[in-house]
């Protein structure tokens, strides 16, 4: 036990002290944050440019008035003809020229906007909306419908989804649950790959550097394997903790950097009438409230550890069976990466349909459960995921780990001292079950 601790400490220290670890841990979240910050910044600042638009309305579509909104200013030109004014609007200080010829109300066409440079998609869709509204109004009047009345008749609701029984009713959001489940599943998928591969490379390093035999003469191969797997797993957990802290800090930074975003978020949270335009945000914050984050984080860590331990032992078994060649490793990892990819595929379905048969199976089978179960859990434990399924899945996961660790230990014991050639699957089978 003491020796496993010594090995574990070395594996942990050498990796955490590496520059690449620092880069991964601190730079990656900052990069992702920076990326999103850039997207948000662009989205918020979009269409801030002043649009001074000249309108020649030969069809009298607007009856001489368009509401100037935000940065859009419309000026009607009555006396000039289009052909002539097309050469002049720039000089008079307009950014573009909207030309509406006389048209048949049932078949409007040839409505153009002239500009020197291509107009942006936001501007274009804004103007299209204005013109469409005007045409609709005209048509309604032609059909003897009062536009004000129609507005009253129109309905725009969102369906809410209270989940649970009796007093425990909470409002959920399928979209949010699905998104959180998807994100958690992908995170486990990626980390299992990264850290599983790290274990495999570590084992290969020991074998290729020929240090394995030196160490195995002091400790049992199984101790070496377990120490390595736990040490690298601890590196992964450290990385998570740092990421969570960074995300936590950034949460406070976002409102400072983007005050307008913070404003609409706050409005959404307060659910005030002004927030009606940010209805989506309301739904998200409501959906997030529905989630039991404590339980989700606990399950996430449990499934990360369990899934990591299962796959890390398999990756260790592959690492010790390879002789020198990176390519050999790639061939041998294929049977291990396949269940992970399969789990990913099931997960995409489970995030959308958490109660389907394949999702239930995937969340119980230990090779796929870490990824698939994480996609189902945000839908609610005790409701969508019955407690017995969660319990059974966790028991299977632990049993699965004990089995793969035992199997990998046997392969490892023989493989780590074999030099010169790659082991075939047949030989590895023999090491595991015949010796």
């Amino acid at each position, binding site marked *: 036990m003491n020796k496993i601790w*010594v090995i574990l400490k070395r594996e942990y220290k050498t990796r955490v002290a590496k520059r690449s670890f620092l880069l991964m841990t601190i730079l990656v979240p900052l990069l992702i944050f920076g990326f999103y910050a850039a997207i948000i910044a662009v989205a918020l600042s979009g269409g801030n440019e002043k649009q001074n638009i000249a309108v020649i309305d030969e069809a009298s579509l607007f009856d001489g008035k368009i509401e100037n909104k935000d940065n859009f200013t419309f000026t009607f030109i009555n006396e000039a003809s289009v052909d002539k004014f097309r050469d002049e609007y720039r000089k008079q200080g307009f950014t573009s020229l909207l030309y509406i010829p006389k048209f048949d109300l049932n078949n409007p066409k040839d409505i153009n906007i002239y500009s020197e440079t291509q107009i942006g998609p936001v501007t274009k869709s804004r103007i299209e909306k204005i013109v469409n509204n005007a045409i609709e109004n005209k048509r309604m009047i032609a059909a003897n419908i009062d536009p004000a009345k129609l507005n009253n008749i129109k309905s725009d609701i969102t369906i809410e989804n209270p989940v649970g029984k009796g007093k425990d009713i909470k409002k959920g959001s399928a979209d949010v649950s699905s998104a959180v489940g998807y994100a958690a599943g992908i995170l486990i998928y990626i980390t299992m790959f990264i850290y599983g591969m790290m274990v495999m490379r570590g084992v290969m390093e020991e074998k290729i550097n*020929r240090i394995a035999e*030196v160490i195995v*003469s*002091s400790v049992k191969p199984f101790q070496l394997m377990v120490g390595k797997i736990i040490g690298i797993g601890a590196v992964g957990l450290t990385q998570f903790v740092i990421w969570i802290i960074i995300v936590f800090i950034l949460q406070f930074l976002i409102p400072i950097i983007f005050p307008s975003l913070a404003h609409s978020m706050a409005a959404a949270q307060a659910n005030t009438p002004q927030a009606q335009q940010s209805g989506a945000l309301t739904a998200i914050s409501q959906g997030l409230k529905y989630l039991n984050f404590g339980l989700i984080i606990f399950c996430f860590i449990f499934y990360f550890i369990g899934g990591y331990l299962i796959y890390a032992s398999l990756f260790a078994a592959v690492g010790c069976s390879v002789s020198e060649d990176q390519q050999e490793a790639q061939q041998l990892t294929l049977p291990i990466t396949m269940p992970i990819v399969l789990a990913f595929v099931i997960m995409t379905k489970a995030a959308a349909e958490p109660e389907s048969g394949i999702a239930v199976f995937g969340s119980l089978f230990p090779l796929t459960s870490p990824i698939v179960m994480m996609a189902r859990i945000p839908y609610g434990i005790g409701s969508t995921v019955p407690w017995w399924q969660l319990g059974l899945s966790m028991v299977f996961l632990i049993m699965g780990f004990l089995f793969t660790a035992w199997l990998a230990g046997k392969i490892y014991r023989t493989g780590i001292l074999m030099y010169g050639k790659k082991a075939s699957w047949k030989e590895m089978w023999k090491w595991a079950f015949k010796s």
Partner: protein
Amino acid sequence: MSMLEVRNLRKYFATQKAVDDVSFTLEKGSIFGLLGPNGAGKTTLIRMITGIFYPDQGEIFFDGKTFDPKNDVVNIGYMPEERGLYKKMKIGDQAVYLAQLKGLTHEKAIEKVKEWFIKFEMQSWWNKKIEDLSKGMGQKLQFVTTVLHDPKLIILDEPFSGLDPVNSNLIKDEIYNLAQKGSTIIFSTHRMEQVEEICDHIILVNKGKKILDGSVNGVKQQFKENLFNIQLNQSVSASSSDIFDVISRRNNGLVVKIRNGYQANDVLKYFIDQHAGILSFNEILPSLNEIFIKLVEGTSLSRQFQKVTV
């Protein structure tokens, strides 16, 4: 009292009888040569003694008691032939780590490593990495990591490969030193001149079986062919006689083989009777190299794979 006793040790693999009924005894403080051609089963034998493999059959007694790998490995220092160290790790940390795996506490390990680094003039290496070392320097470090926990039994597999004569001597002296202090040393190699120089006791294994066991001198006596070298002060036209056969002649020297039933003195008497001035007369003992080749030759050079039925 014996440090290590091996009785009827046997280890079969799927296609090889790697070690087949080998027994030997090692005295405390002795330097023991384990010889054999490539693939004779030396490494398998050593791996059983170091607790890496379990024997299929047979017993190992370590320091008078049945060998218990879990507790006894701390008293063994093993430098395998396939050896290496972590390339990216600092040398000092690495030595301390390996010492800790042998059961030393962190503080004790640091103390020991410092002591040995001073002895081998390696103090400036502490913060360097293995990839900065030459092969010979790496070898020296490997030796230090093998012995720094004061093991009672030290097993060295080809310890001098890649070392220059100066560093070879440094390590050779250290081996003598350790033996003097009571450590027992097993020395596995196929470099016979080193064995002759260092070892007290040798065994030779071939194809998994022990084919020779004894002290270096005893083995030589066992394989001597009654050859003598005579240097005379004049050329003699002596040819084979009743007493001896002339094997070769060169200037005033002769190599003779004494016939059965005669002694060295009979040869001397013969030449004295011939009134030849004898400058030197000495027995030619076979080198271990010759014995090795003689014993191993004739068996097929590489081991054939065979079906093993247990």
